[in-house]
């Protein structure tokens, strides 16, 4: 197993006077931040802070330049079509809602079908349910196989309905399943649908080219990829964005405001109403630099290494059951131990300094199909290493001991 040896860059992972060492295994929910990102954000506020675009003074020029540089970094990092096709949002959820509202209201009509999947996060389900209800359209949810992969047969069946759009994730946050996008996307396009890919779990972990994959809309969050909270992006085909109506109205997104109606700016400004989170964009740019320095392939290899180590180590623990597929899976491990409730597991582990997540992971449709209310989930990132797996395993053994004592 490779070791990236970057733990020291993450201040929160160092024990200090206030608290002891944390083994952080909840990066699928939100990642920790390296010093480099925190420094970049702080430096922005200390040296370049101002509103963007409309200022004729030096600070505003700097801030605008940094903001647009961040947009270029995002474009390159995810292989976008063009920086005009990169819209900064608060995160994945906002990006998906933007598409559901703007593209959705104009393109999905009564009687139309929207295809979503049972493997997806609520953020890629609820906006489509809301849209379908407003427009009188139908939602068709693609099923999963027993081992937690997308059921491609069912996807094909769903595509026969000639949906307007198919919304699915690249990597499942609950199980780590990696969807075979190179196989799936051509099918979707052949069926005449547009595809939205929820990249919340792929952007941090997998080298991706939105344009090579021929993705129409790609959404992701900065906070899951070492960046600050409150920033993310929608990366889209510029031609699609050009035709769409604005999502929110306000400053920056207009060309001319009349008393009764207004004309709108070109993309990307058209979709960025109000003062943007410039510091957030700068921080996201710094996170991208950091990830590029390590290398996305090295990151994927590292995580795969830890995942397999963990799978092996945890298989020593009797009664431990892992959910999800054996192959094509990112560094996410959803599991159950005996009949111990996942929240009890999380509490016991927390006392050992191990932070895992227990719950439905915002994937209730998937949980229903797995026949559980919730699972325990450990997820890995650049700062995790072999020793973290060992501490996790020992914590689980302790939990087992506590709860079997009562048997």
């Amino acid at each position: 197993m490779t070791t990236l040896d970057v733990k020291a860059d993450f201040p929160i992972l160092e024990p200090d006077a206030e608290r002891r060492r944390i083994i952080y295994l909840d990066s699928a929910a939100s990642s920790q931040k390296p010093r480099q990102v925190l420094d970049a954000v702080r430096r922005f506020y200390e040296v370049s802070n101002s509103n963007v675009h409309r200022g004729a003074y030096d600070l505003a020029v700097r801030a605008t330049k940094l903001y647009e540089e961040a947009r270029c970094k995002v474009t390159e990092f995810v292989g976008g079509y063009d920086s005009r096709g990169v819209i900064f949002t608060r995160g994945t959820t906002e990006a998906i809602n933007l598409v559901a509202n703007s593209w959705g209201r104009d393109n999905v009509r009564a009687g139309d079908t929207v295809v979503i999947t049972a493997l997806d996060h609520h953020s890629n389900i609820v906006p489509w349910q809301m849209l379908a209800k407003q427009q009188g359209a139908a939602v068709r949810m693609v099923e999963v196989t027993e081992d937690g992969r997308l059921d491609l047969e069912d996807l094909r069946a769903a595509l026969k309905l000639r949906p307007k759009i198919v919304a699915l994730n690249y990597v499942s946050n609950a199980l780590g399943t990696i969807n075979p996008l190179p196989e799936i996307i051509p099918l979707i396009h052949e069926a005449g649908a547009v595809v939205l890919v929820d990249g919340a779990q792929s952007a941090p972990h997998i080298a991706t080219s939105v344009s090579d994959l021929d993705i129409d809309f790609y959404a992701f969050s900065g906070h899951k990829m070492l960046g600050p909270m409150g920033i993310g992006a929608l990366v889209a085909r510029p031609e699609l964005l050009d035709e769409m109506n604005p999502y929110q109205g306000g400053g920056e997104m207009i060309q001319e405001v009349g008393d009764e109606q207004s004309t709108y700016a070109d993309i990307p400004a058209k979709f960025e109403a109000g003062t943007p989170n410039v510091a957030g964009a700068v921080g996201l740019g710094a996170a991208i630099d950091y990830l590029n320095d390590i290398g996305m392939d090295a990151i994927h290899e590292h995580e795969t290494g830890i995942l397999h180590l963990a799978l092996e180590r945890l298989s020593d623990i009797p009664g431990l059951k892992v959910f999800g597929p054996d192959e094509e899976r990112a560094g996410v491990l959803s599991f159950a131990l005996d009949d111990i409730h996942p929240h009890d597991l999380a509490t016991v582990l927390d006392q050992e300094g191990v932070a895992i997540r227990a719950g439905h992971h915002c994937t209730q449709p998937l949980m229903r199909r797995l026949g559980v209310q919730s699972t325990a989930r450990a997820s890995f990132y650049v700062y995790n290493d072999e020793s973290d797996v060992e501490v996790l395993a020992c914590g689980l053994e302790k939990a087992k001991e506590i709860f079997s004592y009562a048997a």
Partner: protein
Amino acid sequence: MDVRELYQQVILDHNRRPKNFQLLDGASHRAEGYNPLCGDRIEVYVEMKGDVLTDVSFQGSGCAISKASASLMTEAIKGKSRRHAEELFESFHSMVTARPGEATKKNELGKLAAFDGVREFPARVKCASLSWHVLKAALRCNSETVTTEE
């Protein structure tokens, strides 16, 4: 704090073998409670004769804390007056939400005092109080779903 102060033996026992864990056919009152943080759901059934809770039971899924809490609750209130049950709820609730060092009515709570450790685990307070909220809802009206937000 050691996690075993939270998972005391009586809690582990009641989690394993919950008391009154069944449907109550003759229930005059019932309510359902839902904890949106975990998706767990508990139903509480009460048979009231006059002012007395002659029988109480529960069903549903939940963590050790919520299951044991429901189980111990049914034991504690069975045969008691409505007034008494409500007083217990007050004492119980103030115990699990007390701030560090704050005095509680732990002593009046008998076996329920086992949940004293919960207040050190803010994320689990809802688990401990879920069944009590459902009981309260059941007594308030005949059939209702409550979601607990502390």
